[in-house]
């Protein structure tokens, strides 16, 4: 205490001395003590001045806006039965596991929520894939009306895949100047999801909405509220996430997907490597790639390395992540792209290996719009520091490829998750009335990658003794439960809380190569002399192919007049579909004797809407423990139909949608026993007293609203 008092006295004396010096100066001009004081005073004055202007504007216009709002509110809140709706999306939270953990007393807050309100299984979409299900969640319609059927869609001319949710193209015009191709204008970003998210209806009625990281909200659409885009936001390269492994090791196989290997080279005493970036915008079609160089000084004795990237210098121990590091990819003529990434030191001896996350769009200086308004992502970055913006921010590919180990992957997941929690609580504070919706992806990624430890004999965890298997999934559910508890403590009686997941989870122990089955059963043909194809149907003979599959659950007919090399006559399509359904339904895995496919669904029967033509012809419902093989997803025909899944990605939901419903928790009683994810949008609109658009497929749920005004 005495020490503290002395320090305080010392500080006081110094403070008074400075004040004295300033006061004794006879004129204000001589009180100026250089640019340091100038900066401090100017910056402070400027901040306060701008804040004053903003606030004055807010105050002066507030009565008018209040009047406008009250007119709007009469329409919106006039019949509203709740003041606020908080929707927590836990991607992939499984109802069976949840029920099990609740029964074991491990999820006290969810148990409380169940007791206070309701816990239901939530019917998912066909197929049970996140972009499809969340699109239905937000639009209240079936995929035939929102146009999202999978992560990938196929190009009818080339049979090649493209991202189904958004299309990013370079500027329409460019100017050739010597060796440079100068882009004239900005990249064109086109959202492919159709339908109107329900927060647009709320916003138009004067109900404020904060929407955070709901999948398939890229590019962000304009509406009266704030939104941060989620799943499907690309990295700076334009991919869905390309990590980089910088290594002194020679050779090494090329990563199948999701990553690149970059050499670390010795130059003098330091090691040098680089982070690969986007294509050079000035190189036109020649395809040059931008890069950011960095320098590494490993210290094998202390098991650490000092890394220098531009002006950023940091030291990492082995097994440690850096904070987000800003990187600027410079092209000629002053063009540049800014991103952020994290470095992870894997090893310093005998070799040096550094993993670098995909280069995320910098939320503080976004080169592409990732929020609405654009300033919202900047606001969050200024408030909490840089954060992951990539749609699939948790690097599952790196764990699959053994570039990251379990702990490193989990550290990455929970770092992102903690950022998301901060955003959620800020949104809760800022949205006292209206809608606050936030989706957490951690539940999905962690279950995908750690399901193997839940099962006795999962192929991806064979050889790992039971007592060495971490309780990752149970811990995950506990963390989510704790989050729900903290959210509940902030809610008043007029707030509706819903905890929603888009689908559940099952094991992914066996791979089914449907293209192989189609080949072996005469529906798909390879070119003469071939027994296997390459990726994306390389060496497939389209002139003799009647059906093919790509992506996770879709099966397509090679239809004449639709596909470029289609051979199936339109009048034969129904017969062919029926034949495929009959032969595939109940397909048995000879090794295990279990049913690999439990249902095949005709899209003409399950979808309705203006975009049905873009849908696959059939949706494959895999049995529990099965999923489309990694090769089949990438349009590859192999010899094996069934094989073990040895990857860390060991749990999945791209199975028969009837097997993987999501969860719906609510702090209010819900009457319906079998609600669907399609019902959430109409339910929220109805609770806010808004009329339901006629095109909705979902039905509003009957929610008891005690305590609401």
């Amino acid at each position, binding site marked *: 205490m005495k020490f503290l008092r002395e320090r305080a006295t010392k500080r006081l004396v110094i403070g008074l001395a400075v004040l004295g010096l300033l006061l004794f100066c006879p004129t204000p001009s001589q009180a100026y003590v250089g640019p340091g004081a100038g900066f*401090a005073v100017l910056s402070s004055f400027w*901040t306060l001045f701008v804040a004053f202007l903003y606030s004055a504007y*807010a105050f002066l216009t507030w009565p008018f806006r209040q009047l406008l709002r009250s007119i709007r509110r009469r329409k919106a809140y006039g019949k509203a039965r709740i003041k606020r709706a908080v929707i927590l999306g836990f991607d992939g939270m499984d109802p069976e596991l949840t029920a099990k953990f609740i029964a074991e007393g491990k999820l006290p807050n969810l148990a409380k929520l169940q007791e206070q309100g309701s816990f239901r299984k939530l019917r998912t979409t066909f197929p049970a894939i996140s972009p499809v299900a969340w699109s239905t969640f937000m639009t209240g319609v079936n995929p035939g009306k929102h146009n999202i059927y999978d992560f990938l869609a196929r190009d009818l001319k080339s049979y090649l895949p493209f991202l189904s949710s958004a299309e990013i193209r370079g500027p329409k015009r460019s100017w050739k100047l010597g060796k440079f191709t100068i882009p004239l204008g900005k990249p064109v970003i086109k959202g492919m999801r159709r339908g109107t998210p329900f927060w647009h209806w709320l916003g138009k009625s004067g109900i404020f909405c904060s929407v955070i990281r709901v999948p398939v909200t890229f590019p962000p659409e304009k509406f009266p509220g704030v939104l941060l885009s989620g799943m499907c936001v690309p990295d700076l390269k334009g991919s869905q996430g390309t990590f980089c492994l910088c290594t002194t090791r020679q050779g090494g196989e090329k990563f199948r997907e999701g990553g690149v290997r970059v050499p670390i080279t010795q130059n003098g005493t330091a090691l040098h490597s680089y982070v690969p970036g986007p294509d050079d915008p000035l190189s036109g079609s020649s395809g040059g790639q931008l890069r950011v160089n960095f320098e590494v000084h490993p210290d094998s004795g202390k098991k650490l390395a000092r890394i220098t990237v531009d002006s950023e210098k940091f030291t990492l121990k082995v097994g440690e992540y850096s904070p987000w590091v800003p990187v600027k990819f410079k092209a000629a003529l002053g063009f540049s792209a800014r991103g952020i990434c994290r470095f992870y030191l894997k090893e310093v001896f005998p070799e040096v290996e550094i993993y670098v996350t995909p280069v995320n769009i910098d939320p503080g200086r976004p080169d592409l719009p990732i929020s609405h308004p654009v300033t919202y992502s900047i606001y969050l970055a200024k408030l909490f*520091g840089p954060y992951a913006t990539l749609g699939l921010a948790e690097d599952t590919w790196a764990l699959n490829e053994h570039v990251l180990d379990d702990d490193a992957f989990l550290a990455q997941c929970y770092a992102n998750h903690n950022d998301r929690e901060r955003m959620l609580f800020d949104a809760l504070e800022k949205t006292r009335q209206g809608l606050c919706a936030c989706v957490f992806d951690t539940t999905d990624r962690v279950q995908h990658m750690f399901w193997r430890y839940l099962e006795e004999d999962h192929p991806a965890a064979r050889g790992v003794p039971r007592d060495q298997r971490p309780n990752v999934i149970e811990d995950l559910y506990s963390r989510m439960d704790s989050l729900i508890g903290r959210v509940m403590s902030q809610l008043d009686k007029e707030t509706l809380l819903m905890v929603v997941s888009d689908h559940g989870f099952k094991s992914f122990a066996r791979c089914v190569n449907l293209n192989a089955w189609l080949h072996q059963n005469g529906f798909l043909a390879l070119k003469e002399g071939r027994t296997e194809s390459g990726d994306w149907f390389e060496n497939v003979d389209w002139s003799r192919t009647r059906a093919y599959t790509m992506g996770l659950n879709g099966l397509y007919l090679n239809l004449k007049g639709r596909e470029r090399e289609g051979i199936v006559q339109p009048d034969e399509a129904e017969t062919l579909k029926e034949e495929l359904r009959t032969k595939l339904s109940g397909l048995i895995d000879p090794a295990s004797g279990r049913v690999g496919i439990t249902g095949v669904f005709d899209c003409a029967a399950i979808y309705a809407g203006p975009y049905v033509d873009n849908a696959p012809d059939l949706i494959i419902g895999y049995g529990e423990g099965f999923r489309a093989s990694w090769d089949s997803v990438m349009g590859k025909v192999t010899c094996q139909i069934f094989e073990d899944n040895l990857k860390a990605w060991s749990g999945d939901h791209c199975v028969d949608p009837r097997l993987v419903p999501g969860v719906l928790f609510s702090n209010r009683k819900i009457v319906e026993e079998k609600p669907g994810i399609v019902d959430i949008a109409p339910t929220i609109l109805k609770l806010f007293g808004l009329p339901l658009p006629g095109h909705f497929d979902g039905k509003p749920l009957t929610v008891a609203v005690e305590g609401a005004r």
Partner: protein
Amino acid sequence: MASFNPVGGLRNTFIYGFRFDVPTALVIVVSVIVGFLMVLVFRYTSDQKAIRIAKDQLKAHLLAVRLFQDQLPVVLNSYGRIVQGTGRYLRLALRPLLFAIVPLTILIVQLDHYLGWTGLPKGETFLVKARVSHAEVLNTTNLQLPAELNTTAAPVHIPQDSEIVWRVVASAPGKYAINVGSADKTFSKSVTISKGLERISLARLQGQFWERMLVSTESALPAESPIRSIEVGYPARSIFFLGFEWNWIWLFFVLSLAAGFLFKSMLGIEI
């Protein structure tokens, strides 16, 4: 302070804007060096991370006022946080200020002796003023000048201020010592007749430590002296820069800030 005449200033900018004399060049050089050094002082004496966070938070709260402007409680809350954040930022800026304040104050005071005032021109009259302890002493106070300096009129007594004023003219440039005598004692004071850049001492004072530090380069008058001060009426110097006449301190303020902003961006330093 800069005298502001937009039309004349614009014309002068075109005609004389880039004509530099020694004092102007000196102010520019000193400003750039001080700007650079201050940025370095900021870099090494401040908590750069804390300053960056404080500034970012301020920006965030500003954005919040704009993003959530329909929600008055949020606006009020954010404004409160802006005021709080500004205080935090100023507190963080205080530490580097503490390091800089003494050397910079000394530097500015010393520069002011050179740049704040010009030497006296040859052939033009100027005033020498002496303040005495009480009015009775005025009758016995006299001025002794070297050959190159002459009075042009009889001295003026101002008993209510205990002051006596002489009008003097110089016939040749140089540095001279004038003597003010009273009660058998004389006290000297330097006088600079020059067009160039000279170290000017405006006054010789008795006591008054802080004021002496700012306006005088000479030793203090003895404590028992009946003369309290001897002042010479040097004209203030105007620095001509970009078509405007500036007091050097304002030009220094603007240029050192500009240099600081430039160097901070170049060196990636948070200020």
